[in-house]
């Protein structure tokens, strides 16, 4: 194991992918590294001719990556802040996601999109969007949501090796978080959930930044004698429904946590899936924890008020036990 930050895991994964495959090209820097932007030199020092610093034009950047992928290479396209990705939606949704389908499998598009999404703190409405639920409604993409440096590394390697268009939904608040990355430097299979904590009383399905909050809630609840299982889907599409259903079959209770707006959230989607496919396992109503359906306010106390916390997750768990 090697200890590294989430940001360092991202850069290391891109570096290892570029070393392993000459077709991997990076379109975009500095990857939202913020104070860790010195990490960028690891990429530019070794692969300067394969790192492009594009102008700020998200649609053009995304679509250039799509065209390059259709023509054979494996571009990693950084779309910067998730909120800016909307400018590139036609290229992601009308081009990348549908090419393989509408050519009956003849033209895969091995492009990787990456953005830093989510409520970052003071981002206000135009820098705080969680875009994963918007994109989740599109067939044809693989959507990855790493919650820790190990998954950041392994999922990025998987994305750059995949023949499908992939979208890495990276949470802005995770970039500085540290964790252990396995030394085998392996890709994590796309479509495989990870049980981050075993428990027998209640299942929490949480994604991205919410996994850490769910684990914190689980530790607190353990002190009260409530044994919580935390399932991290890791990839939203394809979604590992079987692992979620198997967990609910063991515990009989489900809380789903997603940072985005409640309406149309992953929390809502997973709750619906379990209500349909796992109804007989359920001993209580499924609880969803997500944001109220408002834009994200700039005001710090207002922002804090609307976010899921380990306390709101704990309260939801307890509602399943009433």
């Amino acid at each position: 194991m090697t200890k590294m930050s989430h940001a360092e895991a991202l850069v290391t994964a891109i570096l290892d992918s570029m070393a392993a495959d000459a077709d991997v090209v990076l379109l975009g820097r500095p990857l939202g590294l913020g104070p860790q932007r010195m990490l960028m030199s690891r990429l530019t020092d070794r692969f300067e001719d394969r790192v492009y610093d594009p102008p700020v034009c998200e649609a053009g950047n995304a679509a250039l990556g799509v065209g390059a992928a259709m023509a054979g290479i494996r571009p990693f396209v950084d779309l910067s802040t998730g909120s800016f990705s909307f400018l590139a939606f036609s290229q992601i949704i009308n081009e990348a996601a549908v090419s393989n389908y509408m050519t009956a499998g003849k033209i895969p598009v091995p492009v990787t999109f990456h953005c830093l999404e989510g409520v970052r703190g003071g981002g206000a409405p135009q820098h705080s969007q969680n875009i994963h639920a918007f994109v989740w409604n599109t067939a044809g993409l693989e959507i990855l949501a790493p919650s820790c440096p190990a998954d950041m590394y392994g999922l990025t390697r998987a994305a750059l090796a995949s023949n499908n268009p992939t979208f890495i939904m990276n949470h802005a608040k995770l970039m500085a978080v540290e964790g252990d990355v396995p030394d085998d430097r392996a890709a994590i299979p796309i479509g495989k959930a990870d049980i981050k904590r075993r428990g027998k009383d209640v299942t929490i399905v949480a994604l991205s930044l919410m996994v850490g909050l769910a684990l914190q809630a689980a530790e607190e609840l353990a002190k009260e004698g409530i044994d919580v299982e935390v399932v991290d889907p890791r990839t939203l599409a394809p979604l590992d429904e079987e692992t979620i259903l198997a967990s609910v079959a063991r515990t009989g209770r489900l809380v789903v946590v997603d940072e985005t707006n409640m309406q149309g959230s992953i929390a809502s989607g997973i709750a619906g899936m379990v209500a349909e496919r796992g109804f007989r396992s359920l001993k209580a109503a499924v609880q969803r924890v997500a944001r109220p359906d408002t834009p994200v306010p700039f005001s710090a106390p207002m922002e804090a008020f609307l976010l899921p916390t380990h306390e709101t997750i704990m309260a939801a768990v307890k509602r399943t036990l009433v």
Partner: protein
Amino acid sequence: MTAQSVKTPDAPAPAKLLEMHRAMVLIRRFEEAVRVLATAGAVPGLVHLCAGQEATNVGVIAALEPRDAIASHHRGHGHCLARGAPVDGLMAEILGKETGMCGGRSGSMHVIDLERNNLGTNGIVGGGIPLAAGAALSARARGSDAASVCFFGDGALNQGLLHECMNMAAIWKLAVVFVCENNGYGEFTAIDDVTAGPSLLARGEVFGIPSSMVDGMDVRAVHEAARGAVARARAGQGPSFIICNTWRFGGHHVGDKQDYKDDAEARAWRARDPILKSAAQLQDEGHASEADLRAVEHEADALVKRAVEAARAAPEPAPQRLLEHVHG
């Protein structure tokens, strides 16, 4: 705008001129057959024909090698055919049949043909522009001297994506040729009503991209401009911008009543039919007899007739296969 000089290859040989003529005739006959089929209700959805614009399709594509890439637009059957797409496969795709080039999943507006480095027709105005620029990026990453061409209509001149891509192509000297097929109308609207500025070429020139305007009804003029641009691209000198002035013989789509065009305009443009011009030139120069030209037409008719019959008889895709190919 002065370009560093790259030698344009010698003038095309008579065989090449005849080949370009043959390609234009095939496109015209193909489009006429599609018009008949669409009018009869055999084509699902809307279909956009390129009759009248054959010279811009063929003149540019005849300047390319197989390793070069193209990206087309919603009026793209001519690009596919000029690039060598199978006539029967394209016709079957337009009818949505299982035997179509994309198994009936793409239809007229989204057919992609990677075997011929054709990144596809495209249902989004301007959508193909960055795909071609991306193909140029791919060529560079792989150390290839392949060029790529994006075709777009005058409507796409007002898309932000065009300007994003021209900027990136210029700063990175990408081997891409921007070809605007200016047929005077974006859907049902005359270009002058929606396009500001006295010079369309300025839209390339502002990025330092060598920009030129040619008669899009003259396949030889188009071809010469394209050869120069492709040679520049291959030599690592970056993008070029060519505006081909042409005219759509039909409406925006089959069934469009075209009440926004007048008879005098139609007469003037039809008198400049690129196929009639090419035929007259070939005859005047002694490169083809009237009988030769008639044979070209018969050959095209036979190919199209066979394609229509095969496509009509072909099976529909099985709906149960809906979930295939969502992921690769």
